[in-house]
């Protein structure tokens, strides 16, 4: 009579581990996420050329429309970086501009970000923002083509 291959049969501990693996992952991910801030920067070209609004802008489309007088909003680029507190991430922007974001120590569900936007050696903006996780702020104004750039900065 052929004997079963002991290597091919998963025992109860292995099965239990496999079943609990998703829960273990669930428990592990938030603790890692709490130490890092995901900074999401979208560069939007706002102009009066046409009347199209990029669907990639999601629910922010209506907000942009009600806040500004531009008729067209097009997402040019979107970048996302996970940064530890104190770590600086650089985001390239159109027209040789760049943005540097550094998460600062914060409590609870708050995120503090030090933001610096520059154009070559020129410092366009230096600011420190306090947001809730998942919050958003807009930075606009730098000219681009026939309109302006609006940066959508959010942090999770």
């Amino acid at each position, binding site marked *: 009579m052929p004997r079963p291959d002991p290597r091919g049969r998963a025992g109860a501990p292995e099965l239990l581990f496999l079943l609990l693996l998703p829960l273990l992952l669930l428990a592990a991910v938030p603790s890692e996420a709490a130490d890092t801030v995901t900074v999401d920067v979208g560069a939007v070209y706002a102009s009066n050329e046409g009347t199209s609004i990029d669907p990639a802008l999601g629910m922010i489309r209506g907000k942009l429309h009600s806040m500004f007088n531009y008729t067209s909003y097009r997402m040019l680029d979107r970048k996302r970086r996970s940064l530890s507190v104190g770590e600086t991430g650089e985001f390239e922007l159109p027209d040789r501009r760049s943005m540097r974001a550094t998460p600062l120590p914060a409590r609870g569900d708050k995120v503090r970000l030090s933001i610096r936007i520059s154009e070559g050696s020129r410092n366009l903006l230096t600011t420190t923002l306090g947001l809730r996780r998942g919050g958003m702020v807009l930075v606009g*104004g730098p000219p681009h083509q026939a309109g302006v750039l609006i940066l959508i900065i959010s942090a999770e």
Partner: protein
Amino acid sequence: MDCGTAVGKILAKADGLLPRQEEAELAGHLAGCPACAAEDAAITGTGPALRALTGIRAMEKAPALDAMWTRVRAGIEEKRETRRRPLWAARWVWIPAVMTIALLALLFYPSRTDRSPFHPSSFDVAVEDVESDTATVALVDKGEDLPTVIWIIEDAKT
């Protein structure tokens, strides 16, 4: 042609390696040399005799080979059947794997995909400080349901 050369050519002919022209020369020599002709006959006859012997041996061994092949085939079939019948654990192991993948997709889709549209949970922003070396900066806060805007005015262009 001397007899030594002729024997070499007889062997080459038996192996099928003798060119046609040399074969004609060899035939001329064999016609006039009974000793070489006898050698040629002996060597030429060896091949068919060996083939016949091998055939007889193969016929003798055929039943044993058939039996062995049947056993090999049965062994292969048995292995295949074992592979077709997955173990109980192997049958269900995909469920936690799929659950894990689904959970990871759910967890990371909104934060790791650049294509997800913007869905901010809050517009509550505190601007602790704001300054610019080269531009005028305006802070626009139109209320909680609208995002705070920091507007950079360069050379009164915008």
